[in-house]
C-alpha cells in the first residue's frame, strides 16, 4: 500500500515494499482506496509517483514542494535522489 499525505501531492509513501509489475493500493488522505500499477521496485518508506511528472515539475508532498524533477518520471515509478533534487540550500549552484 502507498499512502497519500495531502490531496495536492503527486507522490505517495510506500507503507510496504512494492515490487515492479504488481498492482498496489493507494490510500488517500480521506481514507479512500484505488489501485496503481507499480513500474519499478519501491522500498518501504520511499516515494511512488502518482501521475506522470515532467522534468522541471515540482514534486509535492505534505501539500508543499519538496523539490523538482530532474528527469521525466512515470506514474508508478519510484521517486528519489536519482530523479529529483531540492531547491533550497543549493551551495553547488551559482546564484
Amino acid at each position, binding site marked *: 500500500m502507498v*499512502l497519500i*499525505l495531502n490531496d495536492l501531492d503527486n507522490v505517495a*509513501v*510506500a*507503507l510496504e515494499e512494492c515490487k515492479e509489475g504488481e498492482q498496489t493500493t493507494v490510500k488517500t488522505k480521506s481514507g479512500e482506496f484505488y489501485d496503481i500499477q507499480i513500474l519499478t521496485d519501491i*522500498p*518501504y*518508506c*520511499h*516515494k511512488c509517483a502518482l501521475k506522470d511528472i515532467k522534468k522541471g515539475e515540482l514534486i509535492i*508532498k*505534505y501539500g*508543499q*514542494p*519538496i*523539490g523538482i524533477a530532474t528527469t521525466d518520471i512515470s506514474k508508478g515509478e519510484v*521517486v*528519489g*535522489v536519482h530523479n*529529483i*533534487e*531540492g*531547491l*533550497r*540550500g*543549493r*551551495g*553547488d*549552484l551559482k*546564484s
Partner: protein
Amino acid sequence: MEFLGYVRDNGEVGVRNYVLIIPSCRVANIAAKRIGSYVPGTKTIITTGEVGRHSRDRERLANIYMGLAKNPNVYATIVLGARDDFGYKEVLPEKIANGIKDNGKPVSILTIEECGGLERLIEEGIAKAREYVHDASLVKRQLVPISKLQIGVKCGWSDATSGISGNPAFGFAADKIIDEGGTVLFSETVELIGAEEEVVKRCVNPEDGKRLLEMVKAVENSAKQTGEDIRSINPIPSNIKAGISTIEEKSLGAVQKAGSRPINGVLEYAQRPEGNGLYFMDGWASAYSLPVSLAAAGCQITLYQLGGQDLPKNDPPMLAVNTGVVAPLMFVTGNPSTAKKAPRSIDYSSGGVITGEKTLEEVGEELFSKIISIACGELAKGETVDYMDPIEPYFLGPVF
C-alpha cells in the same frame, strides 16, 4: 493533571535530583571526571573549552554551563576552575557561580590553585559532592501540576514514518502538555528550510516570526557558503537510504513534532523561555548538541523522535546516549521495524499508526502518559547505562 517531582526552593520542579559538576576550563576536566565517578547522583560534562573562540561563542558555552546548573533537575552545583582569575572573563568560575546563584540553588567554587593542587581539589570536590548528594536526597517527590513541566524535542534518523506517525504522535502529546499549562521547545533551525512558512504563521508575535525567518536564512546562507548541495550534508545518508530525498522533505516531516498550538516565542540558543506554551529555539540538530542545549534552556526531559529505518539490527546503541546530561533523553519512534530492532533503547513506539492498529490520537495519548511516567521517575531506557556521549555546544565559529 499532575506528576511527581522534586520541588525546589525557587518553585521550579525537577524530574531528577542531581548534583552537577562543571569544569569551567579544560584543565578542570580531569577533576570533574574523577569526582563524578566517585560520587553517585552527580552529573558532569567534559568541556572542549573556550580557547580561541570569539566572545559570542564563549558566552554560548557559559550559557550552557549556567543553564544546566539552573535546570530544575539539579539540586546543587560545584564549579571547578584552575584559578579565580584564569582565562576569559565569560567563563571565570565566579562569573558562572554568580549566574547560578540568581536561581537560588546551592553552588560552590573549587579551584586547583586554592585547593593546593589537582589531587587536593579532587578530594575537596568529592567531600562537597557527597554532602550535596546527601542534602539532595532529603528532597522528596511531591504531586505538582503539569504546568511545571518543560519538554524539549528533537527528531532524527528520519524516514517516511517520521512525518506520518512519529512526529505527529509527539505533536499530539505536545498539544496536550501545552493545554495542561506546560511548555514544549522544538529547534533544529536547518530543518525549517522549506517548512518555515507555516511555522511563521503560528508565531503569536510577528517580530518573533521575523526573527525565526532570519535564523533560517542565516543557516541556509551558511550552508550555501560550503559550496555543496545541502543534501550532501543533511538529509544525512541514513535519511536518503530511508527514502527522504531533500532538506525540504525532511523539514516538512520534522515540523510536525511542533504540534498545532501557537508559538509563544522564538529563543536564542540555550535561552530559557519566560512563559509557558510552545517555543522555538535556535539550535543545531546534532544529537550530541541539541539535547544538552534544550536541558540548558530548562527542559527537564529531552525526547528524540527517530525514524530509524536505516538503523542496524540487533539492538544497536542510539545515535546519542544521555546527551541531555541532567535531563533524561527518551527515544521514541513511529517506525514499527525500528521498535523491533532496538527494544532495549526505545521508550515508546507509535508504529501502530503505520500498521493500522492504532490512531494518531491513541498513540499521542500513550506517548503523553509515557512522558509523564518518566517525569515521575520511570527510567528512560538510556538512563540504564552509566555512560554519556561527548557533548558539542553549537558554536558559530570561526576559531582562531
